[in-house]
């Protein structure tokens, strides 16, 4: 599969080098970009994303539409916290309105630090909005479900 859900391997080492700061106040700016498979991206390019992804790429990214612009949109950080022995962080849900988009996956990356990739999200199937709203809802911010967890 060209898009495989994964925490990027490079991100794991970058966490140990304090490259990423997810704090709501004073933290880095993280963006989410949408990707297509099967030549659905702009210029008919196909995304190949997974654990080996190291940084944001325009290959396979969907075209701008409605409030979605290429390069992705900024996420709203939620302060990292802990639950039991697990540390986790979260983002506010993100919506792109009046958008005609078909996407198979997404990438969260650090816009502050050289566009370094955080994780790749696989939607499982193509998700399409036609002149409508394309919303990404993040999982509950809990130790067993949060979007980014260190157990």
């Amino acid at each position, binding site marked *: 599969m060209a898009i495989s859900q994964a925490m990027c391997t490079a991100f794991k080492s970058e966490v140990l080098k304090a490259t990423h700061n997810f704090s709501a106040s004073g933290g880095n700016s993280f963006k989410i970009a949408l990707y297509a498979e099967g030549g659905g991206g702009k210029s008919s390019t196909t995304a190949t994303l997974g654990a080996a992804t190291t940084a944001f790429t325009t290959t396979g990214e969907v075209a701008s539409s409605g409030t979605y612009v290429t390069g992705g949109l900024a996420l709203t950080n939620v302060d990292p916290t802990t639950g039991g022995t697990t540390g986790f962080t979260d983002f506010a849900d993100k919506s792109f309105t009046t958008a005609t988009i078909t996407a198979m996956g997404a990438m969260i990356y650090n816009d502050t630090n050289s566009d370094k990739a955080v994780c790749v999200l696989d939607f499982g199937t193509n998700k399409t909005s036609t002149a*409508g709203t394309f919303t*990404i809802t993040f999982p509950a911010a809990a130790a067993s479900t949060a979007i980014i967890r260190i157990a």
Partner: protein
Amino acid sequence: MFDVGSSVSVGSIEVLTTDNRGHSIEEVAQMAADRILYVADEAPPPIRDQAQAFKNTLKQTLIYYMHQAVEQDRATICAELRKNGYSDLADNLRSL
């Protein structure tokens, strides 16, 4: 020698889409309720059922007040439109 085991994981997101419209109040209320209260499938049944019942009540409350918010916002916009001579547009907006 000591080994410290750890794992870094990514959670599962959900994607919601619409065609030729925005999300309805009910859809947004469901998103809000899901963010406010997470009920684990593996929770003990009595606790899970009680939490689920509370979540349903929460959702209905959110729906009610979101309707109020939309209605009040439209009333404000309609008043502005009328004030600026766009009564027909205001009437159309009120009828939505």
